[in-house]
């Protein structure tokens, strides 16, 4: 098959989009099916809920996409959410600052994001300086940071959660009429990531390093700095997701990210970013997030338990990996 054959432009465009994002038709079909057959799905209340559920997942998945584009993985993101959540809640509810929300809220937000940056930086250093695979480095920080979160919560409050957060903070979680706030934040961060990856020098470098670090190094790309930066971005985004998720739950808890890692990695992979590095992007991750959240939401409404959802997600990851393998093989045959 000749990859350069001339077809009608529209047909070509559709084929191009389908090849690039096979998840798109699946998302549309699932949405229509859910709207028709799942009770209470197509209600204003639930659609609001759907968007809110997508918001923090989108942020954390965008961050992870940067790492996966480099052929790496970041296991620590959900732990960052846990630690950020309890430390942020402590600042807003229990610390001496708690009396003045006008101070405690911004401080808490900065600290939550700061925790993400710090963990990302440690991950990045382990990968770049100690030459650890990101798999190992972030698995270690995942355990350490989660342990810290649980320990911190039980030390300051005696339980695993901290409540009594200031009302104003809940705006960030989409409380009441502010429901668009987290959605707008998530969308802005997604847009920013997309811009970063497709338009800037940094983005071009992420893809180049993801495909071939040696070629990149010889071409003068600061490979280590690039990898370090994207690990930090992943941490930072997890910190922001933590702010929104904590505000939505209205409580700081060390179990915040518990079930999120699976949905996050599923969003990135099912969206179509290759785990081998260098191919994909946050545009795909957006679709992945919308699809996975849809699935979660619909199955919840149908009363399907979490373990069944887990099985489904696992199956989807395999299915999408297979699809991308088959598409790649076809690409290879064309070559």
């Amino acid at each position, binding site marked *: 098959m000749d*990859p350069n054959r001339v077809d009608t432009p529209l047909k070509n465009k559709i084929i191009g989009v389908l090849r690039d994002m096979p998840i798109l038709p699946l998302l549309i079909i699932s949405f229509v099916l859910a709207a028709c057959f799942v009770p209470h799905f197509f209600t204003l209340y639930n659609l609001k809920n759907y968007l809110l559920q997508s918001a923090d997942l989108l942020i954390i998945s965008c961050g992870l996409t940067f790492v996966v584009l480099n052929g790496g993985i970041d296991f620590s993101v959900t732990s960052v959410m846990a630690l950020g959540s309890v430390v942020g809640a402590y600042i807003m509810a229990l610390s001496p600052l708690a009396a003045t929300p006008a101070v405690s809220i911004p401080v808490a937000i900065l600290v939550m994001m700061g925790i993400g940056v710090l963990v990302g930086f440690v991950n990045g250093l382990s990968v770049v300086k100690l030459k650890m695979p990101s798999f190992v480095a972030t698995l270690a920080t995942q355990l350490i940071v989660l342990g810290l979160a649980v320990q911190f919560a039980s030390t300051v409050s005696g339980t695993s959660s901290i409540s009594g957060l200031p009302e104003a903070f809940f705006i960030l979680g989409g409380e009441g009429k502010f429901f668009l706030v987290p959605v707008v934040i998530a969308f802005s961060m997604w847009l920013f990531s997309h811009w970063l990856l497709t338009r800037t020098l940094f983005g071009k470098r992420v893809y180049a390093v993801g495909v071939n670090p040696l070629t990149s190094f010889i071409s003068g790309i600061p490979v280590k700095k690039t990898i370090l930066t994207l690990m930090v971005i992943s941490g930072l985004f997890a910190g922001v997701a933590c702010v929104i998720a904590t505000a939505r739950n209205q409580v700081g808890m060390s179990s915040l990210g518990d079930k999120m890692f699976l949905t996050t990695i599923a969003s990135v992979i099912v969206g179509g970013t290759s785990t081998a590095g260098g191919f994909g992007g946050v545009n795909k991750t957006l679709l992945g997030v919308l699809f996975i959240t849809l699935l979660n939401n619909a199955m919840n409404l149908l009363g399907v338990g979490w373990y069944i959802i887990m099985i489904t997600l696992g199956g989807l990851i395999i299915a999408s990996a297979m699809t991308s393998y088959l598409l790649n093989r076809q690409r290879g045959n064309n*070559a």
Partner: protein
Amino acid sequence: MTTLSDPLLKISQVRKSFTGVQVLHGLNFDLKRGEVLGLVGENGAGKSTLMNIVGGVLPMDSGTMELAGESYLPLSPLCATERGVAFVHQELNLFTNLSVAENLFIDGFPKNRFGAIDRKEISRRTRECIDQFSLPVEPDTEIEALSAGIRQMVEIAKGLLKNARIMIFDEPTTSLSKREKEDLFKNIEDLRAKGISIIYISHILEDVFRVCDRITVLRDGRIIETKATSKFSEKELIKCMVGREMTQVFPTIQKEIGKTVLLEAKNVSSGSRVKGISLQLIEGEIVGMYGLMGAGRTDLAQVMFGVEPMEEGEIVIHSCPHKRLNPRMCINEGMAFITEDRRQEGLLMTKPVGENLGLVKLPHLLNRFGVVKSEELDRENRKAIEDLRIKVTDYQHQLANTLSGGNQQKIVFGKWVMNRPKIFILDEPTRGVDVGAKFEIYSIIANLAKQGSAVLLISSEIEELIGTCDRIMVMRNGRIVGQSLKAEFDQEKILEMALQGES
């Protein structure tokens, strides 16, 4: 009926080509029983290809082979081993993380009656083997702990254990000490005394003269001469190895060599492959670098471009001395490095041509927000494609790996030329490139020099260097052992320096 005087291995009309390039042109070749046959030739003469065919690593395109009078057509290395052909590779073929015993039996562990590996039996037979060949090891010593020479002995023992009738040695002495080398030669003597035939491939003519009974010279995939060792003089052998007709055409581009030294290496050392190298690259000059495999040319290039660290010495670029370099500094100083392995080091094979072309220049095509100015990038891309005549229909979508070798190499040139560097280090720039594209690449190189760039051209083809360079330096064992100016270029002299220059 076969008799003792018949050749053990008889190769007739063996042909082989890779991606349309004929590498072996119908070879005929005999190996007698109990003889040591030397196989010599320049890099790329076809020695390794021939031996890989004999060893079952590569299939031949046409021709026949007979082993002890029977048809021999090995489909795999295992197949060759079973027929008694053992290959002692240049990079030894042992598992360094396993023990001597495990390595000896790796392709067929003896089993006990429950189907499990019979460790007692392995240990017993390994012990036997160790005694028989008086190896200074224990059965459970890990290979990692052994020196190169002893590893080689283990590999030889492994071959004999499989009842080898023919042993092929490919550059066996490169990683050996002087004493280990003597031991190896003694082992070869013993093998010959046992009636085993040996094919000995080496660049080190001294060794070839010492151990071989006969010598076969290979050049450009053809056998040039086979004679008893005593009938060859070293001079004559070298003459056979080169003696190539200058049939290839090179572009004639008038250019002038300037006065300014753009780059100077002063006593640069790194590892065991780069020892005290000093050289100068002058504007408008194309300097050739010849050397045999493993002479350290690529290592030197990597050190000069900051890919590998410099341990001693300094490199002066545009009169600014550097003790430590990295590729980014070199690029900022106006250098370019076309690597030997364009697939692994030069290109993003699975990415479109456009993305590859922009790799180096990109930091200079940004607006003040760090955003890539795509129109300007497109303009640069189109200019490079036009200037270098890269054959690509849709550079924004067509992947680099869909292009021919020549066009791929032109993308690598394009990526560098776009940044307008003044100093070029080219490591085998025409490897895997067809003849037509070669001519174009020579033209590109000559034009770069004409525009005042300094070029260091590393190549294994003497002919190519003579055709394009103003001066040729020769490396051997990590040192520069000689230099030859354009007026006095002589293939034999250059090869002689590469083979036996004082180092």
